[in-house]
């Protein structure tokens, strides 16, 4: 029988299935990235974002109560543009369903509409031909066909079918997609999620390929009892978990009704989960009165296992842990920068950066990482360098989540821009002067990034094959060559105003060998004697060289 309504538990299962479906297609989504550099991370970023929400949210029968933490977790864990848009979509759904215990077709339709609208509103310059278009047209084209009798399965099927139509049309809307011969990766990722969600309703349950991190409370031995003492205020109750074996014996009441049992338990606490498996009942509840829960349950049977934990203790512990990590000394102005590569981390630290968010592989810092960084800092003003155009949104999201107290996001699109901006700072001056100086540093920087193409691609009337040496200029394919050095030299020659530029900071990547460095500096001196080239140890992946010109 098809579902006319879904509750929180069903929705959780759907989301988990959606996540699993995305996981299985993650590589495929990554490879849809428009640019032929091997840092395609749309799939990873969307997965990490959704995963963060799933980990954060506890099971709850009430849909609204499940959606709220899910959306919060996603907002905090959002990575990259696609992740931010996805998290905003779920935030919109959550807002629409904020009072719903269950959702029927009408509510779900409205939630899908609110979802895309919220996503649009979160992007300063919405680009058509992306996840935004797909989520909008997907629901707008079918909204008239949805009525009270529509089953959730049918609604989602239509939704998916419409989104796929639009997805195939995205190359027409977005020239970069057409040139690269691909469809939009974020939109594709989103469709995989919804397909997984529908799949669960239709009985196509995917087993989890990766066990999510256990967020259950730590074992007793790790608890620090000093966090709860005779002066503490007890307000959080006990996390109570047990498996109850129902008994046939005459001393127990024979007629056990699980729905009735749930209703009774609700009087004693929240975060309630009750799962009946034959003659056993598994229960999870947060309660201030565990004795009532025990008394009620023992009317029907005996405990197979029982666990009772003082949640105040955990809570206090978390606060303690947070405080311990926090304390950076007070400063007038503190800086946060996102980098990838050990050398980069060191360079930014040497420049005086207070918190360097180090991404191991690709630049995909999450809003949560920014919020954590902001929390550690005690400063009158915080200046943030996202150092990648796909990280700017996550930084802005974090700014909002954090409350935005004097946080300035300087939209650096590359580490080179961030480096020049930070290098221009002059401490011991007033804040406005320092920030404007850093902003000036950001200006007129051209970034060239050299790498080996991971696949065939054409863009801007240029085409390259996998294995070609390519140079990206400010994020766009600029030159293609068989030889990396020749590629860089021709990119420099083609750079407008190259004759007026005089500083050239070169961040050497992980793969930049010693002899390559010598060859590069020699050639640069020959070809551009007026350019002051300086090599710095970047250690970044993917890009052999990142060159900042100014």
């Amino acid at each position, binding site marked *: 029988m098809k579902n006319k309504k879904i509750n929180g538990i069903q929705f959780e299962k759907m989301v988990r299935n959606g996540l699993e479906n995305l996981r299985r297609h993650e590589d495929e989504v990554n490879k849809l990235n428009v640019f032929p550099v091997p840092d395609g991370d749309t799939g990873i970023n969307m997965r990490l974002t959704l995963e963060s929400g799933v980990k954060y949210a506890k099971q709850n029968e009430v849909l609204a109560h499940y959606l709220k933490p899910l959306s919060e977790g996603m907002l905090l864990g959002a990575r990259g543009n696609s992740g931010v848009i996805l998290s905003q979509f779920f935030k919109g759904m959550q807002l629409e369903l904020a009072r719903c215990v269950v959702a029927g077709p009408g509510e779900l339709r409205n939630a899908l509409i609110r979802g895309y609208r919220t996503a649009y509103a979160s992007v300063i310059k919405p680009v058509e031909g992306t996840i935004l278009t797909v989520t909008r047209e997907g629901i707008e084209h079918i909204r008239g066909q949805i009525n009270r009798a529509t089953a959730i399965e049918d609604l989602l099927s239509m939704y998916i079918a419409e989104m796929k139509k639009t997805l195939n049309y995205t190359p027409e809307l977005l020239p970069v997609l057409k040139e690269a011969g691909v469809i939009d990766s974020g939109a594709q990722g989103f469709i995989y999620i919804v397909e997984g969600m529908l799949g669960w309703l239709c009985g196509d349950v995917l087993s989890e390929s990766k066990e999510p991190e256990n967020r259950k409370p730590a074992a007793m031995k790790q608890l620090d009892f000093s966090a709860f003492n005779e002066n503490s205020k007890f307000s959080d109750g006990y996390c109570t978990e047990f498996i109850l074996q129902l008994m046939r014996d005459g001393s127990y009441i024979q007629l056990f009704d699980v729905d009735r049992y749930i209703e009774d338990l609700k009087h004693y606490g929240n975060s309630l989960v009750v799962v009946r498996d034959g003659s056993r009942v598994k229960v999870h509840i947060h309660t201030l009165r565990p004795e009532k829960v025990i008394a009620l349950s023992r009317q029907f049977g005996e405990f197979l296992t029982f666990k009772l934990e003082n949640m105040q203790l955990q809570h206090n512990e978390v606060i303690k842990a947070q405080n311990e990590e926090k304390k950076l000394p007070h400063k007038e102005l503190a800086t946060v920068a996102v980098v990838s590569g050990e050398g980069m981390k060191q*360079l930014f630290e*040497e*420049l*005086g950066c207070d918190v360097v968010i180090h991404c191991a592989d690709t630049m995909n810092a999450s809003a949560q990482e920014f919020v954590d960084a902001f929390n550690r800092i005690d400063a009158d003003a915080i200046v943030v360098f996202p150092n990648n155009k796909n990280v700017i949104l996550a930084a802005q999201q974090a700014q909002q989540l954090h409350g935005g107290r004097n946080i300035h996001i300087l939209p650096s699109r590359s580490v080179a821009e961030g*480096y*020049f901006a930070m*290098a*221009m*700072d*002059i*401490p*011991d*001056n007033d804040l406005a*002067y320092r920030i404007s*100086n850093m902003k*000036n*540093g950001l200006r*007129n920087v051209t970034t060239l990034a050299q790498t080996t193409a991971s696949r065939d691609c054409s863009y801007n009337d240029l085409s390259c094959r996998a294995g070609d040496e390519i140079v990206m200029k400010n994020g766009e394919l600029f030159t293609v060559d068989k030889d990396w050095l020749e590629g860089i030299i021709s990119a420099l020659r083609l750079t407008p105003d190259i004759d007026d*530029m*005089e*500083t*050239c*900071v070169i961040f050497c990547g992980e793969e930049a060998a010693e002899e390559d460095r010598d060859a590069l500096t020699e050639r640069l001196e020959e070809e551009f004697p007026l350019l*002051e080239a*300086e090599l*710095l140890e970047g250690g970044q992946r993917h890009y052999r060289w990142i060159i*900042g010109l*100014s």
Partner: protein
Amino acid sequence: MNKFAIIADGSCDLNEKYQKDYDIRIIPGHINYPDQQDAPFILKWENSERDAFYKALSKNPDGFSTAPPNIEEFKRVFTEYAEKGEDVLCITISGGISGACGFATQAKNEVVKSYPNARIVIVDSLRFSAGHGLLVILAAKLRASGHNIDQVAAYLEENKNRIHQCGWLDDLSFVAKKGRLTHSKAFFGKLAGVKPIGEFDYNGLTTVIGKVKGAKKAYSVLLNYMENTIVNASEQTIFIAQTSRYPQAEKYKEMIMERFHPKEVIINDVFPSCGINIGPGLMAAYYIGTPISKGLIEEKALLERIISETA
């Protein structure tokens, strides 16, 4: 009677020729190399030696260190003159960055005990390298023109705050590490492509008063700054100190000659005793100009205006 000795510690970076021409006595300090304790103190070298030294320093900045002449060394020299009955004017490196001035003062106090008639005047130059050297040469010129020790000392005290440093220090990691900068240490690594403009503050420390991206713009900002701060340019001998920036210094010299027509522009080396603490990135002109304001407030505002006006 204006016969008196002018003595300076080795930080003034005046080579043998100046010592001879202007009759200046140098008290060397101490320098340590990674492989050599108390290496010979030098105020003279060839281009190749300079390049080799700064290259080695860049590779191993922690392996090099310096110390000013100690009290005993000052004492010995002062005593030598006291015995002859000759007065001494001793001009030291900035007290803000070195203990030399304190040591010299203590040495003087001890020497005066044994030689009550000895006359020793200590002047804290509040400067280093060519800035210090410039003051020493000014003193020598005044002496040659007949001024007595008190007149010369009074002139130095009155005018030392008018010696400007107009140039860049593009590797601040050395000055920061050795505490020879007003700013907090944490902030200054190696700055590729960005030229911090350094000026002497009221207390003789170097302060970054602005930053400019790229050498070309830096030159024109520096010349504009000099134009606004120099006094009687055509009568001056301007020093350019450079650690390992000789080609840039030559370019700078040409521009200064063309724009201000001073009597002379001299490119001077920065020898190890100063160089170890400054690092390879210094290229700056030293000249007499307007008095430097407290906290460099006026100079900072001036430079800010110049930077925004210079395209």
